[in-house]
Protein backbone atom coordinates (compact mmCIF):
# COMPACT_ATOMS: atom_id res chain seq x y z
CA UNK A 1 0.00 0.00 0.00
CA UNK A 2 1.20 3.48 -0.80
CA UNK A 3 2.82 5.08 2.23
CA UNK A 4 1.42 8.48 2.93
CA UNK A 5 3.48 11.34 4.20
CA UNK A 6 6.49 10.36 2.12
CA UNK A 7 7.61 11.02 -1.38
CA UNK A 8 7.83 14.06 -3.57
CA UNK A 9 4.17 15.01 -3.19
CA UNK A 10 4.40 15.12 0.57
CA UNK A 11 7.58 17.17 0.48
CA UNK A 12 6.05 19.65 -1.93
CA UNK A 13 2.96 20.00 0.24
CA UNK A 14 5.12 20.48 3.28
CA UNK A 15 7.13 23.23 1.62
CA UNK A 16 3.97 24.90 0.45
CA UNK A 17 2.49 24.79 3.92
CA UNK A 18 5.71 26.12 5.41
CA UNK A 19 5.66 28.98 2.96
CA UNK A 20 2.06 29.76 3.87
CA UNK A 21 2.87 29.89 7.55
CA UNK A 22 5.84 32.11 6.85
CA UNK A 23 3.65 34.45 4.87
CA UNK A 24 1.36 34.84 7.83
CA UNK A 25 4.26 36.01 9.91
CA UNK A 26 4.46 32.84 11.95
CA UNK A 27 7.73 30.99 11.88
CA UNK A 28 7.50 27.40 12.90
CA UNK A 29 10.64 25.55 13.76
CA UNK A 30 11.50 22.70 11.45
CA UNK A 31 10.90 19.95 13.99
CA UNK A 32 7.75 21.56 15.36
CA UNK A 33 6.36 21.44 11.88
CA UNK A 34 7.43 17.86 11.40
CA UNK A 35 5.62 16.92 14.57
CA UNK A 36 2.45 18.69 13.44
CA UNK A 37 2.56 16.94 10.10
CA UNK A 38 2.89 13.60 11.80
CA UNK A 39 -0.06 14.31 14.06
CA UNK A 40 -2.18 15.30 11.08
CA UNK A 41 -1.27 12.05 9.40
CA UNK A 42 -2.26 10.04 12.45
CA UNK A 43 -5.52 11.94 12.75
CA UNK A 44 -6.31 11.38 9.11
CA UNK A 45 -5.64 7.69 9.50
CA UNK A 46 -8.05 7.45 12.44
CA UNK A 47 -10.72 9.37 10.59
CA UNK A 48 -10.47 7.05 7.61
CA UNK A 49 -10.63 4.04 9.86
CA UNK A 50 -13.73 5.42 11.55
CA UNK A 51 -15.41 6.18 8.25
CA UNK A 52 -14.68 2.69 6.93
CA UNK A 53 -15.89 1.03 10.10
CA UNK A 54 -19.13 2.99 10.26
CA UNK A 55 -19.66 3.22 6.53
CA UNK A 56 -23.09 1.63 6.58
CA UNK A 57 -24.38 3.75 9.45
CA UNK A 58 -23.07 6.89 7.87
CA UNK A 59 -24.71 6.00 4.59
CA UNK A 60 -28.10 5.62 6.26
CA UNK A 61 -27.87 8.97 7.96
CA UNK A 62 -30.24 11.44 6.30
CA UNK A 63 -27.86 14.38 6.61
CA UNK A 64 -25.15 12.39 4.88
CA UNK A 65 -27.46 11.40 2.07
CA UNK A 66 -28.61 14.95 1.55
CA UNK A 67 -25.02 16.05 1.19
CA UNK A 68 -24.46 13.19 -1.23
CA UNK A 69 -27.38 14.21 -3.45
CA UNK A 70 -26.34 17.86 -3.38
CA UNK A 71 -22.78 16.99 -4.34
CA UNK A 72 -23.93 14.65 -7.07
CA UNK A 73 -26.18 17.26 -8.68
CA UNK A 74 -24.07 20.36 -8.17
CA UNK A 75 -22.28 20.02 -11.49
CA UNK A 76 -25.67 20.43 -13.12
CA UNK A 77 -27.22 23.18 -10.98
CA UNK A 78 -24.20 24.95 -9.52
CA UNK A 79 -25.04 23.85 -5.98
CA UNK A 80 -28.61 25.07 -5.84
CA UNK A 81 -31.22 22.33 -5.80
CA UNK A 82 -34.98 22.58 -5.51
CA UNK A 83 -36.45 21.08 -2.34
CA UNK A 84 -38.81 18.80 -4.26
CA UNK A 85 -36.07 17.53 -6.53
CA UNK A 86 -33.91 16.84 -3.48
CA UNK A 87 -36.72 14.92 -1.82
CA UNK A 88 -37.47 12.93 -4.98
CA UNK A 89 -33.84 11.93 -5.40
CA UNK A 90 -33.60 10.90 -1.74
CA UNK A 91 -36.69 8.72 -2.11
CA UNK A 92 -35.34 7.19 -5.32
CA UNK A 93 -31.98 6.44 -3.76
CA UNK A 94 -33.57 4.62 -0.88
CA UNK A 95 -35.35 1.91 -2.80
CA UNK A 96 -38.75 0.33 -2.49
CA UNK A 97 -38.66 -0.86 1.09
CA UNK A 98 -38.16 2.54 2.65
CA UNK A 99 -40.78 4.84 4.06
CA UNK A 100 -41.78 7.86 2.14
CA UNK A 101 -39.86 11.05 2.85
CA UNK A 102 -41.83 14.25 3.18
CA UNK A 103 -40.65 17.75 2.33
CA UNK A 104 -40.77 18.43 6.04
CA UNK A 105 -38.41 15.55 6.73
CA UNK A 106 -35.94 17.02 4.27
CA UNK A 107 -36.34 20.46 5.76
CA UNK A 108 -35.63 19.21 9.27
CA UNK A 109 -32.57 17.30 8.13
CA UNK A 110 -31.19 20.40 6.46
CA UNK A 111 -31.78 22.48 9.58
CA UNK A 112 -29.58 20.02 11.45
CA UNK A 113 -26.92 20.42 8.80
CA UNK A 114 -27.00 24.17 9.21
CA UNK A 115 -26.29 23.77 12.89
CA UNK A 116 -23.19 21.81 12.01
CA UNK A 117 -22.07 24.79 9.99
CA UNK A 118 -21.81 22.85 6.74
CA UNK A 119 -22.59 25.85 4.65
CA UNK A 120 -26.08 24.67 3.79
CA UNK A 121 -28.63 27.40 3.32
CA UNK A 122 -32.30 27.30 2.46
CA UNK A 123 -33.62 30.02 0.19
CA UNK A 124 -37.35 30.61 -0.10
CA UNK A 125 -38.44 31.10 -3.71
CA UNK A 126 -42.10 31.62 -4.35
CA UNK A 127 -44.03 28.61 -3.12
CA UNK A 128 -40.98 26.47 -2.60
CA UNK A 129 -37.33 26.48 -1.51
CA UNK A 130 -33.90 26.11 -2.95
CA UNK A 131 -31.19 24.36 -0.98
CA UNK A 132 -27.78 25.89 -1.42
CA UNK A 133 -24.91 23.54 -0.78
CA UNK A 134 -21.92 25.41 -2.09
CA UNK A 135 -20.09 27.84 0.13
CA UNK A 136 -20.10 31.39 -1.07
CA UNK A 137 -22.07 34.50 -0.62
CA UNK A 138 -25.46 34.81 -2.18
CA UNK A 139 -26.61 38.34 -1.52
CA UNK A 140 -30.16 39.59 -1.21
CA UNK A 141 -30.00 40.64 -4.85
CA UNK A 142 -29.05 37.13 -5.94
CA UNK A 143 -31.83 35.64 -3.88
CA UNK A 144 -34.28 38.11 -5.35
CA UNK A 145 -33.27 37.10 -8.86
CA UNK A 146 -33.82 33.45 -7.97
CA UNK A 147 -37.27 34.24 -6.69
CA UNK A 148 -37.99 36.10 -9.89
CA UNK A 149 -36.68 33.24 -12.02
CA UNK A 150 -38.74 30.61 -10.30
CA UNK A 151 -41.84 31.36 -12.37
CA UNK A 152 -40.49 30.59 -15.85
CA UNK A 153 -37.10 29.12 -15.00
CA UNK A 154 -35.32 32.14 -16.45
CA UNK A 155 -35.06 35.92 -16.21
CA UNK A 156 -34.11 38.66 -18.63
CA UNK A 157 -32.44 41.98 -17.89
CA UNK A 158 -35.71 43.67 -18.77
CA UNK A 159 -37.47 41.62 -16.08
CA UNK A 160 -35.07 42.99 -13.49
CA UNK A 161 -35.37 46.55 -14.76
CA UNK A 162 -39.16 46.58 -14.95
CA UNK A 163 -40.40 44.16 -12.29
CA UNK A 164 -37.75 44.88 -9.67
CA UNK A 165 -37.10 48.45 -10.77
CA UNK A 166 -33.37 47.92 -10.72
CA UNK A 167 -30.84 50.07 -12.48
CA UNK A 168 -28.96 48.67 -15.44
CA UNK A 169 -25.63 48.41 -13.63
CA UNK A 170 -27.12 46.49 -10.72
CA UNK A 171 -28.89 44.04 -13.03
CA UNK A 172 -25.78 43.43 -15.12
CA UNK A 173 -23.55 42.98 -12.08
CA UNK A 174 -25.94 40.52 -10.46
CA UNK A 175 -26.44 38.40 -13.57
CA UNK A 176 -22.73 38.35 -14.36
CA UNK A 177 -22.13 36.98 -10.90
CA UNK A 178 -24.66 34.21 -11.31
CA UNK A 179 -23.23 33.21 -14.67
CA UNK A 180 -19.71 33.30 -13.24
CA UNK A 181 -20.75 31.04 -10.36
CA UNK A 182 -22.23 28.49 -12.73
CA UNK A 183 -25.73 29.04 -11.39
CA UNK A 184 -27.10 30.45 -14.62
CA UNK A 185 -26.67 29.64 -18.31
CA UNK A 186 -27.29 32.17 -21.09
CA UNK A 187 -29.65 31.69 -24.00
CA UNK A 188 -29.13 34.05 -26.93
CA UNK A 189 -31.76 32.68 -29.28
CA UNK A 190 -34.72 34.56 -27.84
CA UNK A 191 -35.70 38.19 -28.44
CA UNK A 192 -33.55 39.20 -25.48
CA UNK A 193 -30.81 37.27 -23.67
CA UNK A 194 -32.37 34.89 -21.18
CA UNK A 195 -30.64 33.68 -18.05
CA UNK A 196 -31.74 30.14 -17.23
CA UNK A 197 -31.28 28.31 -13.95
CA UNK A 198 -30.82 24.54 -14.12
CA UNK A 199 -31.99 24.49 -10.50
CA UNK A 200 -35.49 25.27 -11.72
CA UNK A 201 -35.36 23.22 -14.86
CA UNK A 202 -37.54 20.11 -14.86
CA UNK A 203 -35.52 16.96 -14.86
CA UNK A 204 -36.78 13.75 -16.36
CA UNK A 205 -34.29 11.17 -15.30
CA UNK A 206 -31.91 10.90 -12.42
CA UNK A 207 -28.95 10.29 -14.67
CA UNK A 208 -26.04 12.58 -13.93
Amino acid sequence: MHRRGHGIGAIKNKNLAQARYKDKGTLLAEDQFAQMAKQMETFRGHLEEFAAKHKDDIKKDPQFRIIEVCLATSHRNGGLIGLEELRDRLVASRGKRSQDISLDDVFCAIKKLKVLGNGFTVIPVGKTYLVQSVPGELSMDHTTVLQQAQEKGYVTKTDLLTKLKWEEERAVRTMNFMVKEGLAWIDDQAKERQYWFPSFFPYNTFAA
Partner: protein
Amino acid sequence: MHREMEDFSWPWQYQFPPFFTIQPNSDTRKKQLEAWCALVLSYLKQKKSHSVDVTEIQNSPLFNNKEINRKLPPDGVYAVFEELQKKGHLEWKDQKTRKQCLIMWRTPEEWGKMIYDWITSKSMTNTVCTLYELSNGDDSEGQEFHGLEKWLLLRALQTLEQQGKAEIINFDGNEGVKFF
Protein backbone atom coordinates in the same frame (compact mmCIF):
# COMPACT_ATOMS: atom_id res chain seq x y z
CA MET B 1 -37.58 10.97 -37.62
CA HIS B 2 -36.25 7.56 -38.67
CA ARG B 3 -37.51 4.52 -36.88
CA GLU B 4 -34.23 3.70 -35.19
CA MET B 5 -34.36 7.05 -33.43
CA GLU B 6 -37.85 6.52 -32.04
CA ASP B 7 -36.70 5.18 -28.72
CA PHE B 8 -33.63 7.35 -28.48
CA SER B 9 -33.52 9.01 -25.09
CA TRP B 10 -32.42 12.61 -25.21
CA PRO B 11 -30.52 13.97 -22.19
CA TRP B 12 -32.11 16.73 -20.10
CA GLN B 13 -29.80 19.28 -21.75
CA TYR B 14 -31.50 18.77 -25.10
CA GLN B 15 -34.69 20.42 -23.82
CA PHE B 16 -32.73 23.18 -22.07
CA PRO B 17 -32.64 26.25 -24.36
CA PRO B 18 -29.20 27.54 -23.25
CA PHE B 19 -27.65 24.24 -24.30
CA PHE B 20 -27.78 25.61 -27.86
CA THR B 21 -25.77 28.75 -26.99
CA ILE B 22 -22.05 28.31 -26.41
CA GLN B 23 -21.57 29.45 -22.81
CA PRO B 24 -19.21 32.27 -21.89
CA ASN B 25 -18.33 30.85 -18.47
CA SER B 26 -15.45 28.46 -19.08
CA ASP B 27 -16.44 25.87 -16.46
CA THR B 28 -20.00 25.83 -17.73
CA ARG B 29 -18.78 25.66 -21.33
CA LYS B 30 -16.60 22.69 -20.48
CA LYS B 31 -19.61 20.81 -19.08
CA GLN B 32 -21.67 21.88 -22.06
CA LEU B 33 -19.16 20.59 -24.61
CA GLU B 34 -18.77 17.33 -22.71
CA ALA B 35 -22.53 16.85 -22.78
CA TRP B 36 -22.63 17.64 -26.50
CA CYS B 37 -19.84 15.18 -27.23
CA ALA B 38 -21.64 12.43 -25.34
CA LEU B 39 -24.89 13.25 -27.14
CA VAL B 40 -23.29 13.23 -30.60
CA LEU B 41 -21.65 9.87 -29.94
CA SER B 42 -24.76 8.19 -28.60
CA TYR B 43 -26.91 9.66 -31.40
CA LEU B 44 -24.61 8.29 -34.09
CA LYS B 45 -24.30 5.00 -32.26
CA GLN B 46 -28.07 4.63 -32.33
CA LYS B 47 -28.03 5.38 -36.05
CA LYS B 48 -25.09 3.01 -36.49
CA SER B 49 -23.57 5.71 -38.62
CA HIS B 50 -20.00 7.01 -38.84
CA SER B 51 -19.98 9.18 -41.88
CA VAL B 52 -21.03 12.75 -41.20
CA ASP B 53 -21.72 15.65 -43.49
CA VAL B 54 -21.48 18.81 -41.43
CA THR B 55 -24.24 20.77 -43.18
CA GLU B 56 -26.60 17.83 -43.09
CA ILE B 57 -26.03 17.09 -39.41
CA GLN B 58 -26.36 20.73 -38.43
CA ASN B 59 -29.87 20.63 -39.76
CA SER B 60 -30.72 17.26 -38.27
CA PRO B 61 -32.59 16.89 -34.97
CA LEU B 62 -29.26 16.34 -33.24
CA PHE B 63 -28.28 20.01 -33.38
CA ASN B 64 -31.69 21.39 -34.17
CA ASN B 65 -34.47 21.04 -31.64
CA LYS B 66 -37.59 22.28 -33.39
CA GLU B 67 -39.74 21.72 -30.31
CA ILE B 68 -37.98 24.48 -28.41
CA ASN B 69 -36.89 26.39 -31.51
CA ARG B 70 -33.20 26.23 -30.73
CA LYS B 71 -30.33 25.34 -33.03
CA LEU B 72 -26.62 25.07 -32.25
CA PRO B 73 -24.89 27.58 -34.56
CA PRO B 74 -22.07 26.49 -36.91
CA ASP B 75 -19.26 27.72 -34.65
CA GLY B 76 -20.85 25.73 -31.84
CA VAL B 77 -20.97 22.60 -33.96
CA TYR B 78 -17.30 23.06 -34.88
CA ALA B 79 -16.41 23.58 -31.22
CA VAL B 80 -18.05 20.24 -30.41
CA PHE B 81 -16.31 18.54 -33.34
CA GLU B 82 -12.94 19.94 -32.28
CA GLU B 83 -13.49 18.46 -28.85
CA LEU B 84 -14.39 15.10 -30.38
CA GLN B 85 -11.28 15.25 -32.54
CA LYS B 86 -9.11 15.90 -29.47
CA LYS B 87 -10.57 12.83 -27.80
CA GLY B 88 -9.81 10.67 -30.83
CA HIS B 89 -13.43 10.13 -31.89
CA LEU B 90 -13.41 12.30 -35.00
CA GLU B 91 -11.38 12.46 -38.18
CA TRP B 92 -11.85 14.94 -40.99
CA LYS B 93 -12.07 13.43 -44.44
CA ASP B 94 -11.07 16.87 -45.74
CA GLN B 95 -8.93 18.63 -43.15
CA LYS B 96 -8.85 21.92 -45.05
CA THR B 97 -12.50 22.43 -45.84
CA ARG B 98 -13.95 20.42 -42.94
CA LYS B 99 -17.22 19.48 -44.55
CA GLN B 100 -17.07 15.73 -44.12
CA CYS B 101 -15.84 13.66 -41.23
CA LEU B 102 -15.84 10.23 -39.69
CA ILE B 103 -17.08 10.00 -36.13
CA MET B 104 -16.10 6.86 -34.30
CA TRP B 105 -18.41 6.52 -31.33
CA ARG B 106 -16.27 3.59 -30.41
CA THR B 107 -12.54 4.07 -30.97
CA PRO B 108 -10.56 1.54 -33.05
CA GLU B 109 -8.85 0.43 -29.81
CA GLU B 110 -12.19 -0.32 -28.22
CA TRP B 111 -13.37 -2.28 -31.25
CA GLY B 112 -10.09 -4.14 -31.35
CA LYS B 113 -10.37 -5.18 -27.73
CA MET B 114 -13.96 -6.32 -28.22
CA ILE B 115 -13.04 -8.43 -31.23
CA TYR B 116 -10.02 -9.95 -29.55
CA ASP B 117 -11.98 -10.81 -26.41
CA TRP B 118 -14.56 -12.53 -28.58
CA ILE B 119 -11.90 -14.43 -30.53
CA THR B 120 -10.36 -15.60 -27.28
CA SER B 121 -13.71 -16.66 -25.87
CA LYS B 122 -14.31 -18.77 -28.97
CA SER B 123 -10.81 -20.24 -28.73
CA MET B 124 -10.12 -18.89 -32.16
CA THR B 125 -6.61 -17.67 -31.47
CA ASN B 126 -4.05 -19.13 -33.85
CA THR B 127 -6.63 -19.32 -36.56
CA VAL B 128 -7.05 -17.38 -39.73
CA CYS B 129 -10.18 -15.88 -41.18
CA THR B 130 -11.08 -13.39 -43.85
CA LEU B 131 -12.16 -9.92 -42.88
CA TYR B 132 -15.55 -10.61 -44.38
CA GLU B 133 -16.01 -13.76 -42.32
CA LEU B 134 -15.06 -11.89 -39.19
CA SER B 135 -17.49 -9.04 -39.56
CA ASN B 136 -20.25 -10.64 -41.60
CA GLY B 137 -20.04 -14.35 -40.91
CA ASP B 138 -22.72 -16.34 -39.10
CA ASP B 139 -20.44 -16.80 -36.11
CA SER B 140 -20.30 -13.15 -35.24
CA GLU B 141 -24.03 -12.67 -35.68
CA GLY B 142 -25.34 -10.90 -32.60
CA GLN B 143 -21.97 -9.39 -31.71
CA GLU B 144 -21.80 -5.63 -31.66
CA PHE B 145 -19.02 -5.59 -34.23
CA HIS B 146 -21.10 -7.63 -36.65
CA GLY B 147 -21.52 -5.62 -39.82
CA LEU B 148 -18.71 -3.23 -38.88
CA GLU B 149 -17.60 -1.16 -41.84
CA LYS B 150 -14.39 -2.45 -43.40
CA TRP B 151 -12.31 0.69 -42.92
CA LEU B 152 -13.07 0.67 -39.20
CA LEU B 153 -12.56 -3.07 -38.91
CA LEU B 154 -9.11 -2.60 -40.44
CA ARG B 155 -8.31 0.20 -37.99
CA ALA B 156 -9.40 -2.02 -35.13
CA LEU B 157 -7.25 -4.89 -36.33
CA GLN B 158 -4.31 -2.54 -36.78
CA THR B 159 -4.48 -1.66 -33.08
CA LEU B 160 -4.33 -5.39 -32.34
CA GLU B 161 -1.38 -5.71 -34.68
CA GLN B 162 0.43 -3.03 -32.69
CA GLN B 163 -0.17 -5.08 -29.57
CA GLY B 164 1.10 -8.24 -31.20
CA LYS B 165 -2.30 -9.87 -30.96
CA ALA B 166 -3.04 -10.15 -34.63
CA GLU B 167 -1.59 -9.87 -38.10
CA ILE B 168 -3.41 -8.62 -41.14
CA ILE B 169 -2.61 -10.90 -44.04
CA ASN B 170 -3.50 -11.63 -47.60
CA PHE B 171 -4.26 -15.15 -48.63
CA ASP B 172 -5.73 -16.48 -51.84
CA GLY B 173 -6.42 -12.90 -52.80
CA ASN B 174 -8.56 -12.36 -49.73
CA GLU B 175 -7.85 -9.87 -47.02
CA GLY B 176 -7.70 -11.69 -43.76
CA VAL B 177 -6.38 -11.72 -40.28
CA LYS B 178 -4.51 -14.15 -38.08
CA PHE B 179 -5.02 -13.95 -34.33
CA PHE B 180 -2.36 -14.91 -31.84
